[in-house]
């Protein structure tokens, strides 16, 4: 618990102004995972404390102890339930955030050294934007992630986990944003000299405004091309 407090303090200091933070989730997947983290942190703090207390108590005169208590009851008896619970929790959250074949909106994400191309379907044909991902709020979106040069990794920390963009395969990641706003994303797999600057912005709009936002973006893009 003490560890949790120590960790929370700087968090407060850092304020909410951390656009890449996994700890200020803006979607269900990230929220589930952040919850997992806080629980695991609490558990870890307790276990660390337990070990430290046992260590401190060791300093003193010799004691009659039974090996079985230490190796079996503490060693096996303590670890199996904790680890079993972690496996179960991990699987449960994992299953919840997995993409399903439910006809969700699909946006193509193509990573190139060192920028991102997002291609969304729209009534006027696919619209491609560069380093700018436009998402409808409150709806699950499947991102189809590819690369044709080296391995990159697509990551919007406030929405959920990362997914690698690997030449030769198509990876699918499901994300959902709660509400309109601006978020940030970045490449998380080392991909050469431009890795640190391979960033993109994420613009979440009301689901109803999404096609229009896309059209605007397409026009912006045309304007840039001219």
């Amino acid at each position, binding site marked *: 618990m003490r560890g949790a407090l120590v960790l929370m303090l700087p968090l407060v200091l*850092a304020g909410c102004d951390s656009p890449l933070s996994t*700890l200020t989730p803006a979607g269900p997947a990230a929220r589930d995972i952040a919850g997992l983290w806080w629980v695991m942190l609490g558990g870890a703090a307790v276990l*660390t404390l337990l070990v430290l207390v046992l260590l401190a108590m060791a300093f003193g005169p010799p004691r009659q102890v039974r090996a079985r208590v230490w*190796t079996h009851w503490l*060693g096996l008896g303590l670890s199996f339930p904790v680890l079993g619970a972690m496996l179960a929790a991990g699987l449960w959250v994992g299953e919840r955030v997995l993409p399903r074949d439910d006809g969700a909106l699909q946006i193509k994400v193509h990573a190139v050294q060192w920028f991102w191309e997002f291609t969304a379907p729209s009534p006027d044909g696919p619209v491609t934007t560069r380093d700018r991902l436009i998402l409808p709020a409150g709806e699950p979106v499947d991102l189809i992630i590819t690369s044709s040069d080296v391995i990159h990794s697509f990551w919007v920390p406030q929405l959920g986990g990362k997914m690698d963009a690997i030449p030769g395969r198509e990876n699918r990641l499901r994300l959902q944003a709660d509400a309109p706003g601006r978020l940030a994303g970045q490449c*998380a*797999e*080392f991909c050469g000299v431009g*890795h640190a600057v391979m960033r993109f912005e994420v613009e979440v709009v009301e689901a109803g405004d999404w096609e229009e936002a896309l059209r605007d973006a397409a026009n912006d893009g045309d304007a840039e091309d001219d």
Partner: protein
Amino acid sequence: MTDSTAPGQQVATPADARDDTLAIAPNPPRRALGLHRRLSRVWANDPGWWGHVTAVNHTTLGLRFMGTALVFFLVGGVLAMLIRAQLATHDGAFLDTELYNQIFTMHGSIMMFLFAIPMLEGLAIYLLPKLLGTRDMAFPRLTALGYWCYLFGGLIMLTALLFGVAPRDGWFMYTPLSGATYSPGINADVWLLGVTFVEISALCAAVEITVTILRQRAPGMKLTEMPLFAWYMLGTSVMMLVGFPPLILASVLLEIERAFDWPFFAVARGGDPLLWQHLFWLFGHPEVYIIFLPAAGVLSTLIPVLCRTQIMGYGAIVASVLALVFLSFGLWVHHMFTVGIPHMALAFFSAASLLVAVPTVVQVFAWIGTMWQGRPQLVLPMYHILGFFLTFVMGGLTGVMLAVVPFNWQAHDTAFVTAHLHYVLIGGFVFPMMAAAVWWMPQITGRERVRGLGEAAFWVILIGFHGTFFIMHLTGLLGMPRRIDVYPDNPEWVWLNLTSSIFGFVMTIGFGLFVLDMALQAFMGQKQRRDPWRAPTLDWAMPLPAPPYTFASIPAPQHLDLPAREVITILARGEGLLPGAPRDRRELLTTSLGTARPDHVALLPGNTALPLGLASAIGGFVLLMLAGLYALTLLPLVLVAMLIWRWGRGMVRPVDDAPIEVAPGLSLPLQGWRRRTLGWTGSVCLLVANGTLFASLVFGIGFLALVASEWPGPEARVTSAALPWVAIAALMPVLGALAQRRSDALQRRGGDGSAAAGLGVVANSVAVAALAVLALGHMDDPTQHARDALRGVLAGYVALHALIGAGMAGFAMDQFRRAEITARHAGLLPVWRLWQDYAAVTALVAALLAVGLGMSA
């Protein structure tokens, strides 16, 4: 004598109580000084600078390994400081990105390959013979070869750094980034060739550590009663034998892809970048346990002595080592949770990664229980042990967090992982190694520590470490990826990074103090009395500093239960087995694998420059490869073959030796009389490693055929006309195996098997010729598709094994001619048999695979 006997019994059945103990009569006591003088003459290094070149002694080389590793640690530490200086501010103005990438790649690679692994090898080489009651490692020349390979490989990498052409693709060198297209230039080749060169040394060490532990324990030191450190090292060395080959294979394949354009990882031609990741982590995860196990062995050795008690749960700890050795090979995919693998497969590896914590937890509680059971003394090594507990427990806990798949999706490749891995590596390896250094320095230098400085160093390191890395967990959760050099848009990370950097420098000061402390001890310490820790283990049953021959006589079973201080004089006066060096040659005792019954007397080679020569020849090959002069590499390869022949000749022993009386009434034959010599056991180990390499290759073929997107490839040109040649190449090694058996039969009868051995030469040569015909006339261009490249690799593998088989057959033929093989002396025959059988089996499998990959009608 072992720290093990009493606790071992809690799980032992009455059947293995000591009633079947060996009884060996003591030798009569002699003048210790006389024994010492003669032994020193026989076992000492050559005088002068030449002595450094020719040294093969384990004490010398163990120290040399550790000293060199320490230097690389300091270099890696300087690089870490450069990284931290760069990250201290958000636009880190002072390194350009290209250089920054080289620096973090080299920091990681140096710390893993040039510091941690050689350090643990050095510790094992230095310590094991002393702990097990023998005089040297099983293959002293191999120790030296390993050292030179390590040194040269390390120097190649350092030189590259000085010239600004160091590897820059991260320490796991993911393809395609590390492929020829995206990493032109020699940077990546430096990594692939340099690290592989260093890995030769790891394999050498693994082979001889395994053999030494299995075959050279003092008589009566059963496997289940040997000091725990030996169990840990046995686990480590077996893991090295099985863990390194996948990386060696991956490195060789990638180097072939870069140099000759054979596709293995290139998607467009049937390769797959994930093959690299699988092979790398198949090595990479076991690697961290390879690093941790020896450190845990140190803890299991030190803690009971520091608490004046015996280790708790000997059996539980051995079981934990056994579990770790296996389980740690089932976790590698947890480094690949974000590559898009189906959830169920991720879950298997998540479960395995969680499960592997169990044996670690068991050990931690066994150690703490030991402390409860005894009276812990708060002296300097105990400080480092407490530092270990604090740090490693936290690192282990973040480790199990990372094993939880969804959390991993967020934390992967962020500063959180950087924090975790340093908690585990520094907590689980560096702290125990510092404890070990404090512990064994008196033995190494024969001097006492200067008071105070070591404690100061400990506190500074501890505070510096946690100040650097604790908040880095948060940095990662706030979204900072690893391997970035600037973060202009993220002011919220600045204070975190600045704090880490400041404490990073504090930690560096701490390590500086630590090194200073060791230097002061070495040069200015008071003379150390014997056995300063009042330890029960044999490593202290000798004068300080340790003499080159370690024991004037080998401990007998009755000595194993006595404290070290009492055994010193007994052994020094020659009351143990095989006292002194009356025949003026390096002799040691080999024992049986399980119960350590005396088996035979082995003769070890003396000082020689051959290892340096061989390492230089291999180094020549590496440099020519780096220079791109591929045709010229044939020269050093021929030299390598010639030197290996000489190496083998150096192992030939006189055939007319009488048995040696090692103790009153106990006469043992020399190694030549036995088929299962140390060399034979070593060959088995080597074949285990080789078999893992072959299995990795088979895995690669299956993986690409199943998963890679561009399969099946273009129509194969190779037709059934090739089949007869394939059959010849596959069956000739089998004929070689039959020829070997014929020579064996003749040898047993005392006949002349040289003709049969000659047949072995011919059979293997015909196999090579058939493969040449295939390569030149029938096979598809290997650059066309992964399928054809893999067929090329299979052919090369079989050809290499047939060539070596021919060499061994030739060697045996030569031995028959020289009458070195007689009815009682099998010479090279047993080892040739192992090799030839292996070559025959792999040739058959390779032929099936090659044909199975498809051909046109």
